[in-house]
């Protein structure tokens, strides 16, 4: 393995940052959407479900392209965000986080949704008879019970976000220090003669991080599951 230049290390740090924020930001929305899909019947439920899954289904490049069209500086949403809140996503690490978050979103939602569906509604009923409103039931019964699922989903989303490439490079390009994540750096190394060594080193690093995350997820989820199962 080759030793890596400062740019590569920058990519590692950036990837961690991007994946972390992407996951964190996706979580509340992910939980809300998963709850809607699992427990509420409403028109457009199928559509919402489809929408959530889009990033999984579309080639990532297409997702990136659509993001560029929508959230780019010229894009309607991108322009509005900039106008109203001074938020720029295009070609910033925040945009990379958006892309990574959107790509990881379906995984997050699925994991949480399955966890919610596994919660016995009888327990929620019992909580309601004890005076807990729907919100309270969710916070005090459903949420603690799905925690293993949420953790597993979050760490999976994190791993996915770490590995996301196509949508990210298409949306926010490959600017060192700003949007060049590990996969983008790998791509860049692979595109030039003699870059394979550095690319492999990065692959190994990202593998190590992802594996560590997965082990952590298993371990956490098992601990939480034991607690939650009342053992």
């Amino acid at each position, binding site marked *: 393995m080759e030793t890596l230049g400062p740019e590569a290390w920058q990519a590692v740090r950036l990837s961690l940052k991007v994946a972390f924020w992407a996951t964190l930001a996706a979580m509340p929305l992910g939980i809300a959407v998963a709850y809607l899909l699992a427990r509420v019947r409403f028109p457009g439920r199928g559509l919402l479900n489809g929408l959530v899954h889009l990033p999984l289904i579309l080639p990532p490049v297409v997702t990136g*392209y659509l993001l*560029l*069209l929508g959230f*780019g*500086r*010229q*894009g309607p949403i991108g322009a509005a965000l900039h106008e109203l809140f001074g938020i720029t996503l*295009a*070609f910033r690490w925040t945009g990379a986080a958006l892309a990574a978050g959107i790509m990881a979103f379906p995984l997050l939602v699925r994991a949480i949704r399955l966890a919610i569906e596994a919660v016995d509604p009888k327990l929620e009923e019992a909580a309601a008879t004890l005076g807990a409103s729907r919100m309270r039931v969710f916070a005090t019964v459903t949420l603690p019970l799905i925690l293993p699922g949420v953790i597993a989903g979050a760490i999976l989303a994190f791993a996915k976000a770490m590995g996301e490439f196509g949508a990210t*490079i*298409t949306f926010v*390009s*490959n*600017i*060192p*220090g700003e*949007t*060049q994540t590990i996969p*983008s750096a790998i*791509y*860049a190394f*692979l*595109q*030039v*003669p*003699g*870059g394979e060594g550095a690319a492999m080193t990065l692959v190994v690093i990202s593998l190590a991080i992802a594996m560590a995350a997965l082990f952590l997820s298993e371990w956490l989820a098992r601990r939480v599951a034991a607690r939650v199962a009342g053992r």
Partner: protein
Amino acid sequence: AEITVFAAASTRDVLAEAAEIYSESSGDEIRIAPAGSSVLARQIAQGAPADVFVSANPEWMDWLEERDAVDPETRAALFGNRLVLIAHGAGAAGSAELAPGVDIASRLGPEDRLAVALTDAVPAGIYARAALESLGEWEALAPRLAEADNVRAALALVALGEAPLGIVYATDAAAEMRVRVAGTFPEDSHPPIRYVGAVTTAAAEPEAAAAFLRWLGGPQAPDIIARHGFAPLPE
């Protein structure tokens, strides 16, 4: 000043080395953002913070010009490349020019394929198709291609021996030990391979950007360009 160069991925190293040298003399910071030319062009059209665009083919530059995203005044061809036929395995480079009637198909086994980049999408593939057509080989080879999404992937197919033959840039062939050049396509068998650069209309410091581009076309650059296997352009 800080200059961001959106560069066709294959030009990252050559531009990075050039930029390092240029920075020393000029004091400008240069950042290279490497990606496919098509991706970069679209991003620039969407207002990407690029000061300079270096495209692997002129079409995407034309496309940006039409959209007033680059300054035509600053557009310049930077360097060229050659298209070569490569074969799996190490060995001496046969640099012989390929001529009509070379019958590449006959060098492929019945199950074998010729690795190229996408022949109607990626520059290296488009050049390869043109070259094969002008040599009269296209008909025979069209059904025998393995088209990769970029030229480096085509190179990898040959390097691993998955395809015994492939068509790539000379720059790629030179650095890969597991392939040898089996012949070079005549310059006139395909449209000239030109990497072109221009300053974007959105550039924060168009002057500094233009200066860098001019420097690339100037007298100091050819050494670096040649060292990376690209073909310096005649004045």
